[in-house]
């Protein structure tokens, strides 16, 4: 089969996967007595219906860009950094900590914000290093190490919100006291979209794209991912590179958490990671780990997230439908990819 035909073939199967996912979600919707067409229309309107909604989509798009970019680094060494949720949380915690520390000091706020973001990145990287150490020196599978660390990070976060950093008067799920305005990231006029966040997120994506495509470091990471033994024989210290990939991903996760604090919530809230880490894992699988596709697919997933906010308001449906749709898209596209390989394999065998 020539290349052009193979590509068309491939696209056909991907479309098949998307169709299957929408059919599945439609069945689910019919099951609860909702009209699928109305619901999908609502999702679209909820995402692009107004300028402020589009701005909201971009606010979700930025963290997704950052986490997915970071995850491609761990994926290239063949690691499942499921601990990314905790790394985002630790980033947010350290950022909040530093800002609180300098709240009453007479430092210029810009300096404090920059310092707090750096602290957040370090926090994310250290939390990732913990999962990395457990993996490389403790033999603990990174999936379980990471998951455990996620729950611990959540507990730490909630412990702080209800304990040491609780609001004056009564501690609550609404988070810590918001920071004064001078400690907020600047946003575009009358929108909640912050331009330094946008710059940093896009910059992050570009850095990872070139790191994985064109650098010696990226090549070595991939060699480790392709096969530990052969990389080891080539003289690449596999454990060191696994640790490095964890920590690079942790830096990105920490930055994500930091930006959620300084640019979105302006305080620490219980669900500060918002599940973006898991969503990033889904996106990475959906795009088959190719950096070039991060931006559009993350945008699509962000749009679904924002569109989903309308579901409970207008249709009395739980907004977790968004997750079902995102998950089934990834699942069915993955399955169709497998079907394609099987069909092609059979065709070649004959």
């Amino acid at each position, binding site marked *: 089969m020539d290349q052009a035909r193979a590509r068309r073939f491939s696209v056909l199967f991907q479309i098949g996967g998307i169709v299957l996912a929408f059919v599945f979600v439609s069945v*689910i919707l019919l099951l609860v007595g909702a009209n699928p067409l109305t619901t999908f229309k609502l999702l679209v309107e909820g995402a692009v219906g107004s300028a402020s909604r589009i701005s909201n989509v971009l606010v979700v798009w930025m963290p997704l860009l950052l986490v997915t970019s970071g995850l491609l680094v761990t994926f290239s060494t063949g690691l499942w950094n499921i601990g990314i949720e905790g790394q985002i949380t630790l980033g947010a915690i350290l950022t909040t900590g530093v800002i609180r520390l300098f709240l009453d000091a007479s430092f210029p706020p810009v300096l404090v914000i920059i310092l707090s973001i750096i602290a957040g990145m370090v926090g994310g990287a250290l939390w990732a290093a913990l999962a990395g150490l457990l993996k490389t020196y403790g033999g603990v599978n990174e999936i379980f190490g990471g998951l455990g660390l996620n729950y611990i990070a959540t507990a730490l976060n909630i412990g702080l919100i209800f304990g040491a950093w609780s609001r004056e008067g009564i501690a609550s799920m609404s988070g810590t006291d918001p920071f004064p305005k001078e400690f907020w990231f600047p946003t575009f006029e009358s929108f909640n979209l912050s331009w330094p966040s946008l710059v940093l997120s896009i910059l992050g994506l570009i850095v990872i794209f070139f790191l994985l495509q064109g650098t010696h470091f990226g090549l070595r990471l991939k060699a480790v991912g392709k096969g530990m033994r052969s990389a080891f024989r080539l003289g690449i210290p596999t454990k060191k590179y696994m640790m490095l990939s964890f920590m690079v991903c942790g830096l990105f996760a920490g930055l994500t958490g930091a930006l959620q604090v300084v640019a979105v919530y302006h305080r620490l809230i219980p669900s500060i990671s918002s599940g973006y880490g898991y969503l990033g894992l*889904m996106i990475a699988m959906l795009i088959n780990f190719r950096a070039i596709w991060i931006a559009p697919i993350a945008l699509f997933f962000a749009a679904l997230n924002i569109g989903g906010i309308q579901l409970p308001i207008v249709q009395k449906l739980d907004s977790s439908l968004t997750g079902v749709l995102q998950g089934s898209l990834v699942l069915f596209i993955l399955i169709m990819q497998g079907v394609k390989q099987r069909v092609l394999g059979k065709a070649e065998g004959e």
Partner: protein
Amino acid sequence: MSGEMILLGLAGVIEAGAPIVIAAIGETITERAGVTNLSLNGLIILSAMMGFWVSLETNSILLGFLTGMLIGIAVSVLIAFSSITLKQSQVAVGFILAITCEDLAYFLGNPIMGEQAPIMFATPIPFLQDIPILGPLFFQHSVMTYLSIVLIFAAWFWISKTRPGLMLQGIGEKPEAAFVRGANVVKLRYLYTIVGGALVGLAGPLYTLSVKAGWKGTITGLNGIGWIVLAITIFGGWKPFRVAFGAYLFAFLQWLGLVLQSTLTFIPSQVLQVAPFPLMILTLLLVNLGNTEWMERIIATLPDWLRNRVIKLIRALRSQPPGALGTPFERE
């Protein structure tokens, strides 16, 4: 604390450990065949919600459990098809299903939050229940708790003492060799993935209809159980008795946490709820110590008398996965 209270607490541990035992034995069976079902966290939550829903509508506990099993079967067929037939990554498919099933449960379960479904009562076993100590400990439970205990022995017997069980070990350890000996690796892996998934599917309704009766959406308190079960399977070294020990140990620690919470009120409840997770990491670290290079190096430097003891201890703790776990079977 009086002796009677402790006895009551331990009986409660066996009751509360039942869903964990059932799910962990199910996962053990699946993994012994060489397939990892990573979807457990979502699968348990989804089967918990669906079982609760069906019981609510039909007023039948039995139908609730059957629904849970059907959910388990459906999810494990997806896992089997994509990983065995299509040779996609088991981790990828399992993780996607873990997340998606959870969302699906919260979506579908939204309208029935806080409803009252039937609750399964205990069925004490005549005569046996009157034995001092053993009676209250083992023979005054619900049917599902008895099943969980029987299951441990049944799984051990099947895996270690029967011919098909030997085949099961073979397809998980060395599928090529088992194939040469006439095992239909693909068919058997499907079978054990589905059997294991069906058992895991029982654990969900066991929570919502008995152990933690009720469905309260995201605060039902089941999030994380599936991951713990997967860790217990590793801790248990894929051996039914050791897996069951891990499950009861976990249930015991949870009970201890509850007891402590009433005395140590200064610890926020959210913090105690996650206490199992650092423990999970530590135990996994402990059972993997024997597989690390640096441990071998340390052992080599120890004096003779100490070295042998340490090696014995580490061997006893060590847990080694089935040789072909997570890898697709290629017929050459």
